Structure formats: structure tokens, C-alpha cells
């Protein structure tokens, strides 16, 4: 779906070091990838290469096999990979939800009857059908982001890249957005790239890529990544709160697995220990 080969980048020549240095990353069709990394590690810069907002200085980026430097294919690239940003208020342009969703396909000259279909279907997919005729500025943050996602769905993309889409949202808004992404990924097969500082969100992905100082530092399944508590901390990152608790307990000599990511898993592990202890007492 997306492939970077020795990707290097800097914004201007005054910058003494590269913002991205020699990045080799392949994102397969249908994957759900989370990208985490400290502030300024290059996450936004990297994902802006995924739909040719930025072009590489060194190396190459391919989107569905197309070199992003090929200007004649810009339309195909932008259609294939849609972007959602952090601030929901800056992304919605129209005064009615359905117009907003129709905005991009209209600009591309899609036939009106087809647009109608796409708008309805996109809003349904993100669970916002009942707000079709509402004014976007009266929606909650989570609802606004889902409308923004619907606007991209109306382009029939292969991949959606989201740069901290939940940073400004409350817990429910976050959950709505993440559930929507999981659904798009599993039911529609859409490739998802999610940039986030929230480790619990990164856990919902099937793969986590860790950036540091403009390079890929770690790449693996959430469980493999988040059990490396010390290493992540050294990179300015963290692990889910539950994982950190298990790590702290294991340091106190309690025998719990360290690759626990959720409340349910921790509950099971700790209940087991308790039952075991009770058994010991009885015998």
C-alpha cells in the first residue's frame, strides 16, 4: 500500500540535521498501524509523505506502486490516501454536515447521483446518518472527527492516515473515533495509519511503529513493543497504565506476565494469583 525506501527529509537548508533519516517502512494493504514517538520525532512529517503533501528529499515513497514525485499521478495518490488532522474545527468547511462530506467528491467532478450515494453511505459507516442536515459546529469533537472521516470515505480511499485525531477529544469522543477506525479496517478493509500519543489507543492497532529523532526505532506487535517499558521510557514514551502497573508489580517480585495491556487481562492475572494463594493457605 505504502512503501518508503531510504526516505530522508528536511524542511530547509538551515536545518543542520535531517528531520527524517533513511526510513524504510512498508505498510501492507489492510493493516492497522499506530505510529508513536516523542514530540518532534518526525511523525507528522513522515505521514505527510504518504499522500504527497511533502515530497522526499532523498529516497522514494511509493503509494500503491506510484512514486509520489510523479506529479501526473497526484490525483490518484490523494484519492487513495486521505488525511485527518488533530483539530476538528479546522477541517470542516461547509455549514451542513452532508455538504461537508460531499465537498471533495464534488470538487473532483463526481456525478451528483453518485455523490448522494457516497455521502449517505459514508455517514452511515461512521454512525452519523442522523446528523446529515445538522450544522457541524454544533457537533461534539468526536462527532466532528467522524464527519471528517466520512468526508474522506466519500473519496473511496484505500488508506486513511490520521494525525492525532483524538488529541482534543474527551474519553467518549476518543472511543467513538477508535471504534470507527477498527470497523473501517475490519469491515471495509481500509488501511489505517494512526499517529497518537495515547498508548491505550496504540494498543488497538495490530502493529506499532516507534519513531525517534527522525528514524524508526522499534516496529512490532503492541504486545512486543509495550513490554519494553524501560526502553520506551528512555525514548520519552510510556506504556498503557495497566502495563506499567504490572511492570511495577513484577519488579516487587510478584509473578505477573509483563505483556499485559488491558484491565481485563490484569484482572485475570491477579485473580489467578489470589486463587493460587488461597489454595496454598487451605492446604
Amino acid at each position: 500500500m505504502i512503501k518508503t525506501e531510504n526516505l530522508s527529509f528536511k524542511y530547509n537548508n538551515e536545518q543542520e540535521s535531517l528531520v527524517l533519516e533513511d526510513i524504510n517502512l512498508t505498510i501492507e494493504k489492510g493493516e492497522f498501524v499506530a505510529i508513536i514517538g516523542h514530540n518532534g520525532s518526525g511523525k507528522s512529517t513522515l505521514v505527510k509523505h504518504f499522500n504527497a503533501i511533502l515530497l522526499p528529499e532523498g529516497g522514494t515513497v511509493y503509494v500503491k506502486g506510484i512514486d509520489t514525485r510523479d506529479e501526473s499521478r497526484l490525483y490518484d495518490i490523494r484519492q487513495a490516501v486521505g488525511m485527518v488532522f488533530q483539530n476538528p474545527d479546522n477541517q470542516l468547511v461547509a455549514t451542513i454536515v452532508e455538504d461537508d462530506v460531499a465537498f471533495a467528491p464534488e470538487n473532483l467532478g463526481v456525478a451528483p447521483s453518485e455523490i448522494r450515494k457516497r455521502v449517505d453511505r459514508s455517514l452511515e459507516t461512521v454512525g452519523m446518518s442522523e446528523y446529515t442536515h445538522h450544522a457541524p459546529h454544533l457537533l461534539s469533537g468526536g462527532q466532528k472527527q467522524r464527519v471528517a472521516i466520512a468526508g474522506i470515505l466519500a473519496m473511496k480511499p484505500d488508506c486513511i492516515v490520521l494525525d492525532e485525531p483524538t488529541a482534543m477529544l474527551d474519553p467518549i469522543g476518543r472511543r467513538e473515533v477508535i471504534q470507527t477506525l477498527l470497523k473501517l479496517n475490519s469491515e471495509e478493509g481500509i488501511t489505517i495509519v494512526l499517529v497518537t500519543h495515547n498508548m491505550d489507543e496504540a494498543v488497538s492497532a495490530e502493529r506499532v511503529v516507534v519513531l525517534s529523532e527522525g528514524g524508526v526505532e522499534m516496529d512490532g506487535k503492541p504486545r512486543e513493543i509495550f513490554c519494553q517499558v524501560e526502553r520506551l521510557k528512555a525514548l520519552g514514551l510510556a506504556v498503557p497504565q495497566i502495563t506499567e502497573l504490572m511492570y511495577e508489580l513484577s519488579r516487587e517480585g510478584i509473578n505477573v506476565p509483563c505483556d499485559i495491556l488491558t484491565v481485563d487481562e490484569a484482572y485475570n492475572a491477579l485473580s489467578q494469583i489470589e486463587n493460587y494463594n488461597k489454595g496454598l493457605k487451605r492446604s
Partner: protein
Amino acid sequence: MVIRAENLSYTYSEGGPFERAALNDVSMTIKDGEFVGIIGHTGSGKSTLVQHFNGLLQPVSGRVIVGDIDLSAKKADLKTVRTKVGLVFQYPEHQLFEETVRRDIAFAPVNMGFSPVEVNERVERAARLVGLSEEILDKSPFEISGGQKRRAAIAGVLAMDPEVLVLDEPTAGLDPHGRKEILAGLLKLHRETGITVILVSHGMEDIADTVQRLYVMNMGRIVMEGTPLEVYARYEELEEIGLTAPPVTKLIKRLYGADICTLSQAKEYILGVIGRA
């Protein structure tokens, strides 16, 4: 400085088609030197409330009193209030507009008439508190990452040296280390200077780790108030109004039926139980 709201109500676009009560009969007293939190889902009225504290919004119905200034009075001295109550907005990057980050942070102290030496001192101290390096200080605010912008905006308000610091979602977009750093910086500032801090946040873990007292808002009203422990113990009610509790709170409740709200409390509790066995 004491901040008091009495029966404060506020309606956006009153009489228009989008009329919406953002605050409904809110009364609260924040004592001098307190560190309090305000939580609530988006649109629950938090930002509208705190914008009253520095005179950005003037009370239409009810009263707001900051120190000895009654903001409800027609001729309230808003200028003084704005230098005493520093407000970091929810989208602080909109607050940046100077050529360099350094000049941005210096903006308020320069306007307040401090000498270049004093301005410089304030800028350096504020930058240190939020973890901005010298290198970043000399960049343009348009050439730094999202998290760096947020730190710069917080530093800009800290450089005013306010008596009350109001932060609306200050850690959104910060990496975990940055979040800890900012919160630790605020705690340190609070401890050393006795500044009053009001923290508005969706980060339940951040709130649990820092504030002494907490207000919960829903639909423009205050619906709960207490210590983080008291509030998070009622996490089922919180979930009903679009909020949640830290994961460790849920875990300990399910395992032992007990109430805790921070990671270290959870650890102590589990060690106590397992140690006793």
C-alpha cells in the same frame, strides 16, 4: 487570589436559532493557592466557565469575583484581571504569532513594561518549566512540531507570572514524557510559589495524579465535587456522562471493591493484599 462564581449562567447566541445554555447556575469557590481540576465531556461548559475567570467573557447572569474585583460590575478592571489570571487556551497554537518562539514568550512581559533583563529572566524560567531548549527558542513558531507549539504557548502565559493559572487541556498533543514534565512543572510551581492552578483536562490519569480537588461538569452544571479519590470512586456515574476513571481505578474496584485513583496507590493496595496472603 480567591475565585468565586455565584449562580453563573451563560447562553451562546441568545435568541438565535442555535441558542444553547453553556452554563447553568454554576456556583463555586476556589481558594487562594488551591490546585483544582475541572472535568467534563466536550461541550459541557468547562471552557466557557474558565473564560469568565479572566474576563474574556463577562457574566450575563450571576457573578464572578476574582480576588477583590467583581467582574460583573460594568466598569470592572479587566486589564488587571488579565495580567493576574493567566489563561492557556485549548488551542494554544493560535496564540503564537511572533517571529521567534523567544519573542512570543516575551510578548506579555514586554507589554507589561518589564526591563529587558527581567523579560529575559522570565522567558528563560518559563522555557525551562515547560522543557523548551535554546535551539527551539530561536525558531519561528511556524517551524516547530505540534507539541513544541503547545509548550511555547504555556510558557508565554507562565512568563506573565500570574497569580492564578488556568490551563484548558494543556497536555493534549504532548508526548508522555512531555505530559509528565509539564504536570511536574506545574506541581513544582504550585508548591514553590503558592500560585492557584485550575486544570481543565480530559486526561483522567493526569487529573488523578495532580489536583487536590475536582469539579465535574455536565450540561453546563456542576454535578460532582470532591477529591480525585471521591470523584473517581463514582466512576459508573462518570461513564454515564461521557467520562471515565483511570484504568487502575477500575481494576482495583473489580478485584477488591476498593477505591484508589493513582498507579502508586494501586501498587500499594495489590502488594498489601498479596503480601497478606
